[in-house]
């Protein structure tokens, strides 16, 4: 099996301050993986490594088996078209309506207008907001805004979705809707998902792979420390 997302002995420091030390991980196509750990442990930084917002101080960051940390800056946009990213604070554009918020992700990649109309309609139906196409995004609820953000992330048909605490700002009801949606995307479209969360109850209700980050090291919490030692 090919690994879709991979860290190979990755270390990261910000201005000399170490955040990640020799972290390794590998996700296969179709995985749904949670990334857990206390605040400030470096979870968001791991996602940033994959969408090339940050470069590692040491080690390899691989997307579909290709190292991306040494890519020229002008190639970053093309990496990002293979990934969808969603955040806790949605990061929608408040000066545009729902349709435009999704459509601009397609314009950016040069999709023809006729295709854009169809594609946006399809994405809105997927997230169950087909009837809100013309709404101002600011009047939508948090859960609805996150669904629009997910639709935007999926616009260019990526095979990986990175989600940084996507339910962090949502009430339990809305969180459930988002989790159902993410699992549906994972199952039906075989999109590999790496999701940062604090919410252990969600992890229990929607089981998946788990990675935990603590003191700069990444480990699989389902494996006991002795097993871990013997695997080295």
């Amino acid at each position, binding site marked *: 099996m090919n690994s879709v997302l991979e860290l190979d002995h990755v270390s990261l420091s910000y201005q000399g301050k170490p955040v990640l030390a020799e972290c390794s991980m590998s996700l296969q196509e179709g995985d749904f993986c949670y990334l857990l750990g206390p605040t400030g442990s470096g979870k968001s930084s791991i996602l940033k490594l994959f*969408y090339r917002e940050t470069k590692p101080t040491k080690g390899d960051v691989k997307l579909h088996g290709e190292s991306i940390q040494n890519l020229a800056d*002008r190639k*970053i*946009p*093309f*990496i*990002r*078209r293979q990934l969808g*990213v969603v955040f806790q604070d949605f*990061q*929608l*554009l408040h*000066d545009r309506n729902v349709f435009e918020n999704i459509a*601009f*992700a397609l*314009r*950016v*990649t*040069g999709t*023809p*207008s006729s295709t854009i109309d169809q594609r946006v309609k399809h994405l809105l139906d997927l997230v169950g907001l087909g009837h809100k196409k013309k709404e101002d995004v600011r009047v939508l609820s948090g859960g609805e805004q996150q669904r629009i953000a997910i639709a*935007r*992330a999926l*616009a*260019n048909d990526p095979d990986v979705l990175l989600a940084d605490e996507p339910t962090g700002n949502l009430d339990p009801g809305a969180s459930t809707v988002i989790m159902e949606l993410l699992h549906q995307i994972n199952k039906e479209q075989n999109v590999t998902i790496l999701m940062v969360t604090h919410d252990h109850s969600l992890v229990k209700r929607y089981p998946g792979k788990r990675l935990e980050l603590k003191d700069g090291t990444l480990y699989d919490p389902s494996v006991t420390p002795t097993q871990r030692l013997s695997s080295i």
Partner: protein
Amino acid sequence: MSLGYSIKEGFAGFGRTKLASATSTFSLFIAVLLAGFLTRGGYALYSLAVDLTDEVQMEIFFAPISDDRIQEFGDYIEEQPWVESIMFTSKETASERFRAEFGDGFGSEALAELDFLPASYTVTMTPETPIEEIQQQVERLEEFQEVDDIAFNAALYQQLRSRVDQSIWVGISVASVILIASIWLVFNTIRLTIYAKRDTIKAMKLVGATNAFIRRPFVIEGVLQGWIGSLLAFGVLDALFRWAVPLAIPQMGIVPWPLGAWYYLALSMFVLGTLIGLLGSTIASHRFIRLA
């Protein structure tokens, strides 16, 4: 990537950050208006000074020699590189003029008969010739036996010439300062606009927009500001010279258009405004979109 999208965004951007766009368009308008005003006013003053300079001529008076010799000498002078044209005045013509001016009384006829009025050439100099050379030429020509005297008002000529040169330099300097200042203003406006839109830019980058794609609407916005600013500037310039200047300085009348037609200046102002907008926004978007 669709250009239609960039143009639409450029126009939309103009509307989204109204205050910044208005400020930038206004400063651009002022810059282009000042440049236009300087050009039109400066050109008028310049052509006036050049006309005056042309009127300062040199007169070469001849000793009593044969007409053939004078003719030969005229041919020689006309060949000189510092000479633009010459005009011959014969003794007879000079006498007639004298008579026409002073009448026949006071024994002037007798004086004319005495043959005291010499034949002469009136020489117009080429404007590029430096004053020092003209003076050297005067000294050289005075050495010739055929030449009786040379009349040339060097001081006046020099003053007029240096005025023209000065005004060209002042014009160029003022225009450069205005140009740089307005590019800087557009640059700063686009920088502010980019700052105001950093969330949009961040989101665009996140979904894989290239920097060139993100830049384009900002550049179009800058060009649009240039167009609006320069069209307004031309309108106001026309109104100024049509109504305000004649009202303030009635003896000036309507100042002529440079090169004789309105469209040369109109086109130059339009091109200038477009360039300022283009340059300011291109520099700003190159510098700041990368950082957003």
